[in-house]
């Protein structure tokens, strides 16, 4: 049989027979870490952007010819290989003289250029081939001197270093010495 309730009893039942829904932040005793997460995510985004641009940089190491090496006794034999970037092309030379195209033999004629320029600038593939030939002929040699004419831009100097340093994965002349002297 249904119980007939008075207005006071109904009010009591309404007030005490339901649970007050709590605010989301009151559900647990833990710290509200959402602002911290916002800061961390923003920082990570910023650092990712900066680091990704840094990752595109590399460095090309070289050294200067030192005067007054503290050698005692005779200096070790060296081929004195040198690469010079000139107006009309690249001059490659060793201790015996200027090298001919292909770098197999020493040049006899008057034209000093070993790797002539192409239409759009220096022929880096030919210089790379020349360095590969020299490395095959003299596998123990790793030192090469690089120089250029006064007007040659820095980009070409770096490209020349790239061409004589490696061929694919094979190391060619890793000990690149930069000469400040001009021709």
């Amino acid at each position, binding site marked *: 049989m249904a119980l007939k309730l008075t207005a006071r009893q109904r009010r009591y039942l309404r007030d005490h027979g339901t649970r007050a829904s709590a605010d989301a932040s009151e559900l647990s005793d833990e710290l509200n870490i959402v602002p911290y997460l916002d800061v961390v995510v923003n920082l990570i985004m910023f650092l990712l952007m900066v680091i990704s641009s840094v990752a595109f940089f590399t460095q090309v190491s070289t050294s*200067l010819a030192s005067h007054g090496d503290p050698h005692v006794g005779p200096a070790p034999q060296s081929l004195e290989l040198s690469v010079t970037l000139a107006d009309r092309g690249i001059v490659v030379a060793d201790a015996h003289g200027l090298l001919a195209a292909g770098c197999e033999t020493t040049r006899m004629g008057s034209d000093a250029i070993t790797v002539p320029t192409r239409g759009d600038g220096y022929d880096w593939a030919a210089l790379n081939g020349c360095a590969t030939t020299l490395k095959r002929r003299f596998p123990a040699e790793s030192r090469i001197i690089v120089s250029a004419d006064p007007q*040659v831009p820095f*980009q070409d100097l770096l490209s020349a270093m790239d061409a004589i340093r490696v061929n694919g994965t094979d190391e060619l002349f890793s000990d690149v010495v930069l000469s400040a002297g001009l021709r």
Partner: protein
Amino acid sequence: MGQVKSMARRRLRRIPEEEAQGINIYPMIDMMTILLVFMVMQFSASSASTITASPELQIPYSTSTADMGEAVSLLISRGDITVDGERVVDLRNGMVDPSDKRGGSTGFLITPLARKLAEVRDMQKEIARRNPRRPFEGDVQIVADARTPFRTLSEVIYTLGQNEFSQLHFVANKTSIIGARSPVAGE
């Protein structure tokens, strides 16, 4: 009233208690914090973070894959030479003014640069004397504009050599093609 109270209790029992239903994000916070610390370390270890390309400074390209190291920073743009962030010499279109060189136009030693490099060298030697774990090895990191003529570069190199900086590290953009150049480098 007792009947009403028991009705209220019965109603309450029928309604389940609210529970916290959030995902446990603590592992994610741990991971993010570790990532953040790693990135901050990486960022602070890299001096390249200060390199910004501009029309005055076009970074050249190289196929080298060597990682950047720490050294004295020397920046050669079209308009000036900067050592460790301090402007030392003004350049005119990438060339050093003859009045800044010993011997004038045919000279190689850039006097203001030599003075600054001597200061840096002396300071580094003093640090090396006090801390043997940081010896002076004459390393210098050169960030030069791709169009810088070899004449200017050779003057800088000569001046570096005169001040016992003989290990040069040129900064470049990574590329896989020998001879790649930036759009304005060839201008």
